[in-house]
């Protein structure tokens, strides 16, 4: 039948060595990154929030939150809190990358783009790989701007470049992980407006029930285990370690004792759960 011949008449690429899924994912990621450049307002506002956090915490709360473990006899020193604070803000910021994936996918669905992608002979996870990759990659820029802001208020990298790169890599891995959770949520959203809210609500308790801003020892007893096992706490603690910033008192819980390992395990487990869930949902979803 000529119907089946017709694609033969257009020149097709040969299969890349790394496979179609990666190729297609890259095409979609490129598209999502072009969006970032075309809508600088969006990027601007995603930068403003963490920068405001840095300034607020550094100048308003700075002296009021004592860091246990810092020399108690010394004069209260706001720069200690700022050292302590920055990795917390890094952790919170990368966690919020998830919201971008939620909103982005809800918009694609709403515009019918997901339908079109699904009608193409492309790898079925590619739209999600591309989206999560682009949303994590955007965090490189966000982390850069944040680091500069932090540097201006007195934050320092005290433990060498290699471990600092390790800290940033861990933060980006975490951004990529939560982007999958955000993507999964996004595919259930009836419209972009709902996605704007639903994409954020779960992130506030998640980030505040951690050691990002307040030492876990300052929390009520019943909250402490939750905060200790929260992957954001281990991410932030690992980052403090790797940057050579003050860590406060480290709890006995295993994640607190092995923050890097626990963060890596958490990321692996979360991706192993949410990537298949999101891809399965993607295969079934249609606009409206």
């Amino acid at each position: 039948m000529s119907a089946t011949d017709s694609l033969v008449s257009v020149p097709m690429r040969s299969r890349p060595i790394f496979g179609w899924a990666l190729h297609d994912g890259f095409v979609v990621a490129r598209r999502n990154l072009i969006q970032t450049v075309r809508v600088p307002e969006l990027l601007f506002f995603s930068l403003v929030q963490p920068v405001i956090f840095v300034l607020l915490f550094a100048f308003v709360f700075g002296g009021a939150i004592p860091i246990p473990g810092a020399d108690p006899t010394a004069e209260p020193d706001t720069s200690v809190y700022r050292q302590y604070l920055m990795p917390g803000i890094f952790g919170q910021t990368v966690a919020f990358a998830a919201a971008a994936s939620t909103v982005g996918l809800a918009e694609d669905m709403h515009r019918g783009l997901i339908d079109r992608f699904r009608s193409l002979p492309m790898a079925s996870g590619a739209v999600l790989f591309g989206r999560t990759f682009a949303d994590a990659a955007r965090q490189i820029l966000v982390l850069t701007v944040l680091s500069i802001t932090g540097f201006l208020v007195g934050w320092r990298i005290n433990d060498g470049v290699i471990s600092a790169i390790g800290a940033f890599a861990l933060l980006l891995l975490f951004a990529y992980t939560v982007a999958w959770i955000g993507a999964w949520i996004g595919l259930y959203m009836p419209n972009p407006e709902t996605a704007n809210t639903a994409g954020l609500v779960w992130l506030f308790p998640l980030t505040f029930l951690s050691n990002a801003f307040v030492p876990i020892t300052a929390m009520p007893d019943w909250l402490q285990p939750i905060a200790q096992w929260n992957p954001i706490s281990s991410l932030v603690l690992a980052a403090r370690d790797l940057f050579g910033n003050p860590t406060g008192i480290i709890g006995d819980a295993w994640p607190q004792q092995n923050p890097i390992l626990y963060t890596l395990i958490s990321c692996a487990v979360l991706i192993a759960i949410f990537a298949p869930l999101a891809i399965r949902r993607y295969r079934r979803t249609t606009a409206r």
Partner: protein
Amino acid sequence: MANVIEARDLVKTYGEVTALDGLDLDVPEGTVVGLLGPNGAGKTTTVRILTTLLKPDSGTATVAGFDVLRQPDRVRSVIGLTGQYAAVDEYLTGRENLRMFGDLYHLTPEYVRTRTTELLERFDLADAADRSLRTYSGGMRRRLDLAASLIAKPSILFLDEPTTGLDPRSRLGLWEVITDLVAEGTTVLLTTQYLEEADQLAEEIVVIDHGRVIAQGTSDTLKDAVGGNRIEVVVVDPAQVSTAVQALTAVANGEVIADAEERRVSAPVSGGSTALVEAVRGLDAAGVGIADIVLRRPTLDDVFLTLTGHVAEEDAA
């Protein structure tokens, strides 16, 4: 001629709503079939099932000989889809959009480049090619949307209400493009709410309502099915509408329809001009003042009203 699209007994329900209720469809190779139906008839649902986006509750469908449920990837590699709403990226330029879709079809970069330029010219978008879509009008977006579904020269094209929301000029332009594609051998399944559009483009028209096929055929056979010609009269005095109905019933071979508000009476007749002469005599004898009287062949509007009106009665029963 072989059928390139075949659907048998498709059923799809959404909770209480039955979107498709045993739909059958055949589209022979190289033809345009128009799927005609009012809002909620099940047009989009049909297109989504045939383009592998949606699984039916029951029934089977093949596209180019491939089963939509078991070989979705094969189906996707031979079809192009233009959905009901323009599905293109707002932030990319026209050229970037086409390039992205071409890349996702796994075409060679050189081919994507030449094909993109070719399509942008064909759809009158060459000047706007490197502008972000946020500066495009609805018609431009729709044309780009159609261009995107043509990037890999699909042999089977699905167009879901391609001209809804376009101004008359853009609509004519799009019709021309579709006619050209068919001349090149593309098979097209087109959904529309516009009878005129189905009449213009489609050789075969399938009328659906409530998820079922209620009539099928060329536009001529459908018109014949409704009855032959109709006489339409506009009376001068609204009070005389019922008198006119009586007078015309004598000439008519079916139910005479009256619209009191518009002072319009419409009667199906078997003969041509003789029936018209008889009607004028009858109205004159009854003393009805005639503002306007015409003899016309049935349009698809008549077909549609007759058919869906009938179905609505059945539903109520």
